[in-house]
């Protein structure tokens, strides 16, 4: 856990609220940690838990899912489904030894640029304290060049052609 460790956060931001909140934060020149890298989705309900795992597996130190407050979803209640998935996912990630702070669900409506910025700052702070995740090296012990069958693993999770016998 070096002093200079800067966590990388992948943010899944809903097009209608949190993405615009991030736009607003920028427009208002609210400065916050540059550690979150946003990916736009149409609704937080689009966030497939696979995306979260993928981001962690690819080296992110944390994942932020952001959507409108319950009751304000552009698509009525997509965020409620997100919330349900998030709670179950959180339980599962706990079993997988991923600290709770690493995957966070944040509500930020389009006007809450400040709140979103604060959430990013807060999460960045928390991850700095936790230290890097670096799943491939630290958990899987991969050196990055196909040792331990890494490459085989890579090909195995590629979509495969399949044949019914």
């Amino acid at each position: 856990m070096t002093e200079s460790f800067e966590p990388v956060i992948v943010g899944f931001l809903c097009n209608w609220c949190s993405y615009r909140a991030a736009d607003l934060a920028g427009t208002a020149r609210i400065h916050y940690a540059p550690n979150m890298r946003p990916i736009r989705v149409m609704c937080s309900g689009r966030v497939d838990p696979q995306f979260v795992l993928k981001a962690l597996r690819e080296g992110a130190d944390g994942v932020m899912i952001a959507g409108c407050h319950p009751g304000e979803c552009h698509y009525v209640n997509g965020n409620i489904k997100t919330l349900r998935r998030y709670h179950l996912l959180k339980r599962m990630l706990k079993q997988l030894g991923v600290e709770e702070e690493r995957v966070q669900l944040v509500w930020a409506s389009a006007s809450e640029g400040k709140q979103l910025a604060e959430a990013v700052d807060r999460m960045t702070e928390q991850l700095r304290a936790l230290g890097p995740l670096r799943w491939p090296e630290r958990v899987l012990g991969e050196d990055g060049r196909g040792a331990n069958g890494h490459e085989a693993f890579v090909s195995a999770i590629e979509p495969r052609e399949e044949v019914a016998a």
Partner: protein
Amino acid sequence: MNALTRASRASPQTFMQEVVAATPGGDTHLELCLQCGTCGGSCPSGRDMEHTPRQLFAMIAAGMRDEVLKSNTPWYCVSCYYCMVRCPQEIHITDIMYTLKRMAIKEGYYQESTAADAPDFSETFIDFVENYGRSFELGLATRYHLKHHPLSAIKMAGFGLGMLARGRMDLRPTKIQNIDQLQAILTKAKELSNGSFEPGGAS
């Protein structure tokens, strides 16, 4: 991280930043003063202050260090917190008054203020607390008044007798059992306070 707050906590350069850094607790918001005057209007002793709290803040913003620390204003603050709860910018005014008192004492300014003996009152009070763990009104009254208001001390003597007669004053101070522990804590606190929250300390 936020640029808005960063200005206030970083190593102090301006007088304003210095005051903010020396004020513990959450965000003091001092830099947000609108000069609306709610504080000055609300202050019960505002009538007798040389500068209203608002004026003091304008002077702080203008970097008028000497004038601010010489002012009797902080010493006339009675900690009523009216200004603080009414301030539309949620400025921690009362806490800032305490900070200014500390600064004035540390830099010896208070002797020039019209409330020159006020710090002595506080210091005498504290002296008893540090030695006994409890305050001691009789001792405080005698020591402070004899020193500063020998004339009124006579008047106060009547007051003191009234207190004694009503069983409202003890002749001897009470000492807490674990006075060593308290003293160790206070000594350590004073040592640490050279770090921050005190005038001149870096944050």
